[in-house]
């Protein structure tokens, strides 16, 4: 069972939901947690794993053998990412745009292209109690977020429960995270912006064919804006977390809601049962 926690924008409390859900489930058995926000990983600040393993992630990028290259231009035409240009009979490469698909070397008629590894980031694995924790860190200057997210997702082995904390937004990195999951939890807040970004996120989940449900954070004033939206779209509103200064302080201190306020454990257990029921249906 793989569940992604996403949100159309940052700062909605997505990580709060993800870490508290993981912590609650870990009471009953092993859980795998993947922080897929490789640009700004922060789940480790709450779950505090001890890291045991660090692996470099590299992508194979083209290197041109000028002796063999005839300047035919085929490589630049097959590259969908414009990571190669052929001008004046010579190839220029832009490794920072390369996605490592291998297309150019496959098509080069003279075998002038070799592939060399280029580091895009690291994956770190560790343990936080019964939670097997993994996250990625993007190399400074690299823009290749989706390939690193895929490397983080490869850390899953025979895990029964996998919680994925998605990056904010609805662009490629989020799609790379959410794709292949059984369910997607969308975290939002009761504001017009919250509804707008939720709408984008719902569109993305539907595009991917993944069932989704909504968690309303900082609930209290003006909840109707999200309740009405959910009703109209036929989306289940699975959980409301009321706005409370004590919760905000708990988050700011890097603590877990389910530890500081144990009554929340039952709530997160119910949330999980509901997810299981809906993902199975």
């Amino acid at each position: 069972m793989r569940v992604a926690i996403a949100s159309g924008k940052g700062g909605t409390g997505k990580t709060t939901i993800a870490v508290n859900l993981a912590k609650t489930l870990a009471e009953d058995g092993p859980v795998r947690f993947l922080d897929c926000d490789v640009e700004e990983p922060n789940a480790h600040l709450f779950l505090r794993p001890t890291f045991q393993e660090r692996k470099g992630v590299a992508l194979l990028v083209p290197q041109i053998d000028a002796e063999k290259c005839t300047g035919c231009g085929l490589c630049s035409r097959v590259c969908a990412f414009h990571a190669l240009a052929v001008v004046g009979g010579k190839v220029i490469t832009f490794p920072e745009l390369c996605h490592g698909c291998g297309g150019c070397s496959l098509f080069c008629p003279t075998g002038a292209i070799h592939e060399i590894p280029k580091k895009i980031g690291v994956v770190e694995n560790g343990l936080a109690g019964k939670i097997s924790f993994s996250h990625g860190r993007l190399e400074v200057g690299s823009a290749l977020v989706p390939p690193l997210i895929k490397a983080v997702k490869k850390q899953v082995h025979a895990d029964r429960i996998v919680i994925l904390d998605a990056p904010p937004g609805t662009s490629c990195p989020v799609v790379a995270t959410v794709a292949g999951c059984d369910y997607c939890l969308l975290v939002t807040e009761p504001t017009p912006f919250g509804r707008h970004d939720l709408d984008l996120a719902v569109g993305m989940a539907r595009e991917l064919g993944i069932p989704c449900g909504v968690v309303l954070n900082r609930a209290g004033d003006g909840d109707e804006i999200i309740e009405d939206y959910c009703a109209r779209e036929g989306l289940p509103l699975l959980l409301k977390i009321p706005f409370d200064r004590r919760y905000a302080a708990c988050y700011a201190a890097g603590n877990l809601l389910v530890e500081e306020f144990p009554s929340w454990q039952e709530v997160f257990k119910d949330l999980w049962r509901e997810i299981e029921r809906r993902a199975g249906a």
Partner: protein
Amino acid sequence: MKVAITSQGKDLAAPVDERFGRCRYFIIADTESGSFTALENAGAMASGGAGIQAAQALADRGVEAVITGYMGPKAMQTLQAAGIKVYAGASGSVGEALAMFKEGKLGLIDRANVNAHFGMR
């Protein structure tokens, strides 16, 4: 000499598009004969590498100089490798920019004057 001007439209009366990689059209003008053609910029909506793609397309058409507003680093590198000169700071209509170019009033640049991803919407 073949000159490409980044343009918002298909003729000399159209305003100059200040973005290079994401301009809508290139007006490719022949300074000797005065003839011109419009080339739609296939990369205008690309998610990345638009400047490289545009530079490649102009190099393939034998363009020798580019007139635009802003030029990013990757496009600059590609144009320079192709031996294409870059004149920046153009504004007004395409025809006006071309006239300024002929009078030597546009500045030749050899370095990007804007960061990558400029003009992305």
